[in-house]
């Protein structure tokens, strides 16, 4: 019988040499005359251990990592195909690794475990149970189940998914659309990418259920051009689902029609904003639309449209399978269910950690993330991408919850966390926030288009030590204008990183005047 060896095909693992490892595994097995099957699974999200190789043995799956191509011969030599070994890279049963064991994996239940493009694997691990249940329910019942779960938008806005669906369901039209916002542009986030590369069928299932719920027959997955591997996997998964009559004119022989198409953006961060995304899908400049009308009433091509974050849609199958009440049981306050937290940047144990809402920021950074990778003290943690606030260690008691972060002048966004050690200059980070906004502004509204440019100039003057108190006053005033006057979150939330840096790290903003060269 052949031995199954898993070598992740996830981009993060590829960036650390997984393809070379897979090649080495295949050639080493051939040289030894061993009958093996290499599966390119997704990542389990333990990136400090990637590439993490797993072997199916008589005693279950056993992991080794981080494996380099040059380690492969030694693994075979140690007999890693036969059972537990005392090889230096041995991690034992991956499920027992503390980082993984502590998690509650609902959305990411299969990611890193299954062959991402195997429907048999998907079904064997609970796939399509949610869809099968949904096919026996009325649209209103599906919407009620999602509403009951308390699921809120995982892109960051936190709008209740059930309410959005209900609006689209109740809007009459000859055509409705489901749009998946997979434009994961926030630095520190990679959850969407991991799902697309590690368990793409869960998104397809979630989107079909959404289509059944609101009466839509067509869905679009809008993805970033920066994610070529994820695009490739998603397109393959759609083909496979179509060939198996999971997508197409009669979903699982139910008579309900639903089909999907991948659309690729072209390097514009602002297209992660839902109305800019719809413009882009229509083939236009990714310029933000004024609301109302809401996309639920007039969305893609003017038709009622469900536009949800990828993680929201990928969480729907488990909600339908196990029930809204089950999902709602996790979390706290008005933040129900689980959230895939992405721990990134200067951190010892970087990766994806899915758990119920409610962990404190300190638990995430110190206990789970293990502090900085550099070993230096943590100075700041940016939560929620380039539009999220910087938190100092003094605020590490903040609970991971939509409302708790809002109360402290921040946001959870797409749940990415970037850790910085004490070498970071917070004025530089504030300047970058303005600079990024200037690069990515769609240009429609003045506070964002002009304000971001003025912000960079102010930061430069501060850096030169020119009249700091005056510049700081102008920055505060500018942030006020941008926050209240911008059309969307790009201009509106750029003040979060800027003001949090300024408020929590005031010393970084007050420089000694730069000496003149003539002096």
């Amino acid at each position, binding site marked *: 019988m052949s031995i199954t060896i898993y070598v992740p095909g996830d981009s993060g693992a590829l960036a650390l040499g997984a393809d070379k490892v897979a090649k080495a595994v295949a050639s080493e097995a051939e040289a030894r005359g061993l009958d093996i099957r290499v599966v390119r699974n997704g990542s389990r999200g333990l990136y400090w251990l990637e590439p993490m190789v797993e072997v199916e043995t008589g005693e279950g799956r056993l992991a080794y990592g981080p494996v380099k191509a040059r380690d492969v011969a030694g693994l075979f030599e140690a007999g890693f195909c036969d059972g537990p070994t005392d090889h230096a890279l041995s991690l034992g049963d991956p499920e027992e690794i503390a980082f993984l064991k502590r998690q509650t994996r609902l959305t990411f239940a299969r990611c890193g475990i299954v062959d991402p493009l195997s429907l048999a694997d998907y079904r064997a691990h609970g796939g399509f149970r949610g869809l099968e249940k949904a096919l026996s329910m009325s649209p209103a019942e599906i919407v009620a189940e999602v509403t009951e779960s308390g699921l809120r938008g995982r892109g960051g806005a936190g709008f209740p998914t059930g309410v959005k669906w209900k609006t689209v369901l109740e809007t009459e039209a000859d055509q409705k659309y489901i749009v998946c916002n997979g434009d994961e542009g926030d630095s520190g986030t990679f959850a969407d990418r991991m799902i697309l590369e590690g368990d793409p069928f869960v998104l397809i299932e979630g989107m079909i259920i959404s289509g059944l719920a609101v009466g839509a027959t067509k869905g679009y997955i809008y993805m970033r051009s920066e994610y070529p591997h994820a695009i490739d996997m998603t397109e393959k998964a759609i083909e496979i689902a179509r060939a198996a009559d999971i997508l197409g004119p009669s979903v699982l022989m139910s008579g309900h029609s639903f089909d999907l198409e991948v659309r690729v953006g072209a390097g*514009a961060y602002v297209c992660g904003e839902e109305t800019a995304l719809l413009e882009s899908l229509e083939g236009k400049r990714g310029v933000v639309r004024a609301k109302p009308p809401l996309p639920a009433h007039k969305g893609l091509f003017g038709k009622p449209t469900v536009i949800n974050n990828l993680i929201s849609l990928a969480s729907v199958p488990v909600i339908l399978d196990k029930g809204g009440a089950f999902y709602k049981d996790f979390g706290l306050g008005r933040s129900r269910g689980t959230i895939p937290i992405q721990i990134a940047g200067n951190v010892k144990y970087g990766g994806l950690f899915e758990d119920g809402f409610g962990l404190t920021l300190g638990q995430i950074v110190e206990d789970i993330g293990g502090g900085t990778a550099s070993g230096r003290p943590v100075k700041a943690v940016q939560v929620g991408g380039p539009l999220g606030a910087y938190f100092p260690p003094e605020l590490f008691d903040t609970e991971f919850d939509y409302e708790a972060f809002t109360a402290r002048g921040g946001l959870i966004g797409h749940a990415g966390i970037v850790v910085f050690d004490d070498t970071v200059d917070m004025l530089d980070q504030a300047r970058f926030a303005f600079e990024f906004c200037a690069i990515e502004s769609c240009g429609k509204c003045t506070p964002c288009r002009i304000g971001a440019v003025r912000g960079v100039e102010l930061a430069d003057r501060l850096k030169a030590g020119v009249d700091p108190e005056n510049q700081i006053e102008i920055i505060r005033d500018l942030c006020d204008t941008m926050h209240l006057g911008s059309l969307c979150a790009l201009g509106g939330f750029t003040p979060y990183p800027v003001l949090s840096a300024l408020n929590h790290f005031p010393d970084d903003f007050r420089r000694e005047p730069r000496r003149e060269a003539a002096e």
Partner: protein
Amino acid sequence: MPATADDIMIDKVRAIVDAHRDLEGPLLPILHAVQAEYGFVPREVQPAIADALNISRAEIHGVVSFYHDFRDAPAGRHIVRVCRSEACQSMGGEAVAERLLARLGLDWHQTSADGAVTVEPVYCLGLCACSPAATVDGDVYGRLDDETIAEIVEEVRL
């Protein structure tokens, strides 16, 4: 009259447009396909796309110029994209990028004189737990250090 190089290019672009005509909102897929064919979106073909989709040339120009991905001139044979976002900054990405640029003798957005390589900034590759990160012609590199930089420089000089 023999067909000019422009005529041939325009015929090819018309075929690309035809292949995408049945899509809803076909412009971005068409522009991606044109860029995949030529490495950029030539100005000469934009009127043909406008005609075929019954939209104005200004609209095409507006879309091409809006998105960072679409080029109006060919890039080098290799394209190196280095992430400049926060997660990569936190791991010394800016300093690593400076060293890479110095070794290539280029600044951001520049192409080497021999046409071998173009270096561009990118804002997040989703490799934030293995930063700093970069791509070379789509191949991903994580935890950039001097060794990986040397590897990249070697690769793009071919």
